[in-house]
């Protein structure tokens, strides 16, 4: 079994909260709380979840755009956290990022060509005419005309700016790209174009993606595997088909059922969650989802035991002590105050499912 290109183990990022006159640290926002996953070469892992779940912070921490508080990040055998100075800069060639906001991620005072060329110059890949030629090829590759290199970002539409951002990331020839909600701010038809572009580039260049999104439907077109995050933790990690066919974590079930289906005749079985997600500064004890969880076997143990991410089916990892099979034994659960046994809970035949062809 080949080693994965990227391995993240127990990644943690806590943002300190300062309070009072002397700005003492009074608490922490636990944005990312012990996240682990692997990504193989040429693979797309989607990181999905709603706002505040920590997916964007995870992406940025992997690239050390935000420094992690704890955990390890290994890229192609190298310990990313140990890098400094020049070696850190060299790593940046291989791991790139595309941002969500097409309007903020390009410097309004730099021409588009200069923005793309920046990476070539900083990493001494090319300069002068050679660099210009590369910029032209990149623009062409993302579907823009080479002449636009001398224009400024405000002259382009959102979709075009996103393409420019992609060209910028590709300029340094990375092996891995964090796509941080790259299509969330785009219209449907433009979204489709950019998603197709990302897929094509992946195939042509053998790229790996960490695809961060809140839109599960988009993710269905991109991802090989999905990781669902809630309040800083991964609650389910599975291959695409398995996740959509049998989402075992109640949060994933609610998430899937909440996505509106563009079909007026579809069955509308819906799992509506009550209330709002709690603040990551004050996460619930035990399972972070337990206050809103609709699982029929939910009991006191859920508020005391932090569920481990367990492999409940081949390649299908779930963090729920009430969804069998589980390594958290009945005895342990009873000690923590459990009154009910784990039982299989798959409430809705996911109304997005079509029988496999």
């Amino acid at each position, binding site marked *: 079994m080949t080693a994965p290109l990227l391995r993240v183990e127990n990644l943690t990022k806590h943002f300190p909260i300062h309070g009072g006159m002397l700005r003492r640290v009074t608490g922490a926002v636990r944005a990312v709380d012990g996240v682990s996953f692997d990504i193989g070469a040429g693979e797309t892992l989607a990181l999905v979840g*709603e*706002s505040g779940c920590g997916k964007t912070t995870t992406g940025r921490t992997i690239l050390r755009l935000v420094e992690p508080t704890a955990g390890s990040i290994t890229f192609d055998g190298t310990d990313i956290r140990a890098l400094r100075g020049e070696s850190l800069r060299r790593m940046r060639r291989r791991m790139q990022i595309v941002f969500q906001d097409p309007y903020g991620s390009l410097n309004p005072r730099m021409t588009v060509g200069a923005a793309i060329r920046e990476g070539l110059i900083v990493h001494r890949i090319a300069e002068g005419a050679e660099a210009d030629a590369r910029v032209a090829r990149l623009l062409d590759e993302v579907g823009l005309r080479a002449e636009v290199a001398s224009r400024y970002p405000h002259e382009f*539409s959102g*979709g*075009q700016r996103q393409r420019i951002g992609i060209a910028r990331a590709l300029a340094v020839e990375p092996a891995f790209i964090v796509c941080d909600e790259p299509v969330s701010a785009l*219209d*449907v*038809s*433009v*979204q*489709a*174009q950019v*998603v*197709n572009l990302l*897929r094509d580039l992946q195939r042509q260049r053998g790229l790996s993606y960490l695809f961060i999104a*809140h*839109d*599960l*439907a*988009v993710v*269905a*077109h*991109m*991802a*090989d595997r999905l990781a669902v995050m809630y309040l800083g933790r991964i609650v389910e990690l599975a291959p*695409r*088909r398995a996740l*959509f066919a049998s989402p075992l974590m109640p949060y994933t079930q*609610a*998430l*899937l*059922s*909440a*996505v*509106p*289906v*563009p*079909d*007026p*005749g*579809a069955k*509308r079985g*819906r799992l*509506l*969650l009550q*209330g*709002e*997600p709690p603040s990551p500064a004050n996460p619930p004890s035990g399972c972070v989802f337990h206050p809103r969880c609709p699982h029929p076997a939910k009991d006191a143990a859920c508020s005391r035991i932090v569920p481990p991410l367990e492999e409940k089916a081949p390649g299908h990892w779930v963090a729920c002590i009430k969804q069998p099979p589980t390594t958290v034994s009945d005895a342990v659960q009873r000690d923590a105050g459990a009154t009910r046994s784990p039982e299989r809970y798959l409430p809705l035949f*996911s109304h*997005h*499912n*079509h029988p496999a*062809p």
Partner: protein
Amino acid sequence: MTSTSLDSHASTSQPGAPLLSVESLGVSFPSAGGTSRAVDGVSFTIASGETVCLVGESGCGKSMTALSLLRLVPPPGRIDVGSRIEFGGQSLLSLADEPLRSIRGRRMAMIFQEPMTALNPVLTVGDQVAEVVRVHTKATRAAAWERAVTMLGGVGIADPAARAKQYPHELSGGMRQRVMIAMALVLEPELVIADEPTTALDVTIQAQILELLRELRDRTGMALLLITHDLGVVAEMASRVIVMYAGRVVEEAPVQSLFSRATHPYTEGLLAAIPRLGSEQERLRTIVGSVPPATALPSGCKFRDRCPYAFDRCAVEEPALLQIGPAHRARCHLVEEPERRVSSPDRSA
């Protein structure tokens, strides 16, 4: 019904006077090269208790259309002469300020997209809901506050008496949207215009809000004009759909017909481009090109540069809204010349 051109008079809804009737609505903005029309010749009706969705992508004019109904078009934009908007039989455009204000908020209300900017950050949410009551009725402060608290409870906010004393920044996005809904519905208006009310919200919160809107709609019998770009939301909420492109209506139909028998190539393209959960990682079908700027629209049909079926007539003559079936119309020459529905290779994506 045979294909007839029924451009100026919208008569596709039930008999009897519709609650809202919009005819040939146009909104223009002065621009560097003259005037550009954000909305051009839009006509539709809404009957009492009906839910109509106005769908389109950014820049299609749907928000501007909604703002026109309440005469809230921001200057230097102007509603064109020749537009007609009738609400409950009364012409809104010729109304004086005073009677217009008595309609706004009371009989016709609006829910905006961004609750953070649409709510006043220095007033408590209770005050803002109560203000709607006090402006339109002779209620006392105490009575208006009571009504506000009740309404906040009615939109699903737990512990409304305490929440009413909080400021917008203390609430989450979903709750702020509920406050906006409370403000819009507290006087039980006949028509509610919701401009992308869930776009800024997480999908699970969106589900809650849509459920809330459905409940309130069923309870009060209000008509709902829902503006969105999300065809999934349309499928869930609408009884009738109006699709806009480049400031014009390009297709309107009952919701079932729209999804099963979309006729206008833009609608087809949109439906094909939507990512769907049940997919098997297929490539998405796209619409070639991008929306032309309002200052540089093509001649004839405005969609022809991106249309896989465009033929010579499309460049010369802009199609009228032609009837396809009962209550189903599309602005496309293909309605009259269906044999021309042959895609050219460079336009299919």
